[in-house]
């Protein structure tokens, strides 16, 4: 929430200045803005609406746009149809492992490319950017064969290692953006005052980097949590993760939409809330350099 209001406050700053000279009525713009709000928000609203309404009302041929009642039975049904907590536990394990490993490895690499001048630095940067560009889908075949050869097919460790390949380049590049924004002079001042290079990092850079690291971690967590293709390909039915669980949400009686929307809600709400906290920082971190250039 705070992120949203923070955003609006930066945005409204130039507005008053513009309003005065023109004095144009805003009602038209506001109406258009509300239309955007309704259109963009409708799928989310309809998901929640369907999840909480009685299942019978969900298949009403003349559905009401407004809530028709409040029930949690769809959630119970969603949990019954197939094991929910197993996939969630596996998704959590994988995502957390990816974040922890990715952060440790990523911070070191980001430090190297942002704080040191060394021969080959540019090549490394190009390399890290380039691997980000390889479409994940293109890699599925060799990754599948590799894990098959290593005996890591259908193992969580295999999935964790695979996810690192797309989390790491992103983490390194984003953290680099955050580190670059911390003035070098701070570190140098600490070193003049007798800190070692590592000491200067731990005492000066690290505290300033921490918020950026939290945001990057959360974002990486979301990415890993949301991944579908590799989870589908590399895990068998009994080891499926949460996204695959939702993707396969059909029963013998066809698709039961109300429980499916309840399942969607359970998957989406925690992620969207996490996302609310970090989105502003991430958008800023991802583009900080772009605007300057």
């Amino acid at each position, binding site marked *: 929430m705070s992120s949203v209001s923070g955003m609006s406050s930066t945005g409204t700053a130039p507005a008053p200045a513009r309003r005065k000279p023109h004095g144009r009525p805003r009602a038209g713009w506001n109406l258009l803005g509300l239309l955007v709000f309704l259109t963009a928000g409708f799928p989310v609203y309809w998901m929640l609406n369907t999840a909480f309404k009685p299942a019978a009302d969900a298949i009403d041929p003349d559905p009401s746009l407004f809530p028709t009642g409040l029930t949690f039975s769809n959630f119970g049904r969603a949990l019954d149809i197939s094991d929910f907590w197993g996939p969630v536990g596996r998704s959590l394990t994988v995502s957390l492992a990816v974040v922890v490993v990715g952060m440790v490895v990523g911070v070191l*690499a980001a430090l190297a490319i942002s704080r040191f001048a060394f021969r080959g630095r540019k090549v490394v940067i190009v390399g890290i950017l380039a691997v980000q560009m390889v479409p994940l889908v*293109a890699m599925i075949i060799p990754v599948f064969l590799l894990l098959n050869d290593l005996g890591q097919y259908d193992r969580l460790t295999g999935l964790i290692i695979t996810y690192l390949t797309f989390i790491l380049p992103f983490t390194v590049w984003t953290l680099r953006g955050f580190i670059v924004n911390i003035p070098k002079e701070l570190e140098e001042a600490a070193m003049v005052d007798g800190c070692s290079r590592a000491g200067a990092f731990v005492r000066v850079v690290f505290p300033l980097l921490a918020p950026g690291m939290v945001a990057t971690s959360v974002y990486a967590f979301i990415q890993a949590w949301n991944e579908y293709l590799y989870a589908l390909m590399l895990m068998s039915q009994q080891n499926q993760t949460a996204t695959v669980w939702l993707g396969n949400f059909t029963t013998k009686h066809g698709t039961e939409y109300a429980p499916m929307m309840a399942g969607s809600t359970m998957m989406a709400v925690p992620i969207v809330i996490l996302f609310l906290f970090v989105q502003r920082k991430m958008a800023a971190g991802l583009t900080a350099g772009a605007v300057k250039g």
Partner: protein
Amino acid sequence: MSAADTTTPAKVPPARQAPPPPPAAKERARNGQRPGGAGAAVPWALLAPCLLVLVLVLGYPLARLVTLSFQEFGQSQLWGFLPAEFVGLGNFTEVLGDGEFWTVVLRTVVFAAGCVVFTMVAGMLIALLLQQVSGWVKILVNIALVASWGMPIIVATTVFKWLFDADYGILNALLSKLPGVEMIGHNWFASGPEGLAVIMLLVVWGAVPFVVITLSAGLTQVPKEMVEAARLDGAGAWGVFRYVTLPILKPVIVMLTTLSVIWDMGVFPQVFVMRNGHPEAEFQLLTTYSYDKAFVVNDYAQGSAIALLTVVLLLGVVAVYMRQMLKIGDVE
């Protein structure tokens, strides 16, 4: 920031005695970083774990992707009954000679281009709109955007499947309320183009928030003085946008467009889940086509060849993106 502020005045104003120590310290630090010195080992040591992971799990498969596409590799090779045989360009000639492949390429390019254009135009319009609306509308729109941005793709796809359901979907019900329209039971996925249009809508819906939020951040960096000056010189709203806003935002727009192209060429789960794991021929994009060849037909070599061709197709776009990003890397 405050610490930086305290160091700067110390350096600038007084006598010349004060500054020398910091430069000396700086030089010592710089010397340590010079390549060849003992310091060069430090950055490489820091990079080592990252590079190790990337080479192992990305470099190796990437190389394998290339070699695979030059081999004969099917079910029997996967199980090790037969050695993988080198067939030269065989897979490529087969893929390139297949008329269906070119249909899929065309479809993918049109689909991705549509997604990118709609995403960028809608994103730009909404970002500009957000500058005009009152604070509370802005907050509402931002909440909706962040919620749709944060939605996992699979969830979003599932929700759209429900919105567009033939019998009970809300969209058909709403459209049928219009006079003279009878849409109940209309199957949006009966034909490829129509179904892909729905999938395009889903992709655009998910991609617009990132564009809006990034462009909004960029718009706050447009100097007000320049806008005022342009206004005084007689520029209308379009003139200001065309000659002031657009040039300033250009780097951001280039970056967003290239990223969108890369992402939209790689659309997979949306099609896959929408079509219940078995996209019909009319729905095949390069990604699903490659997947189908590999895991449905069990011709891993041809699947790899198609994947490799997709990457090659993207190279031009990637080059633009890389140049932009490296420019950023230089600025620091």
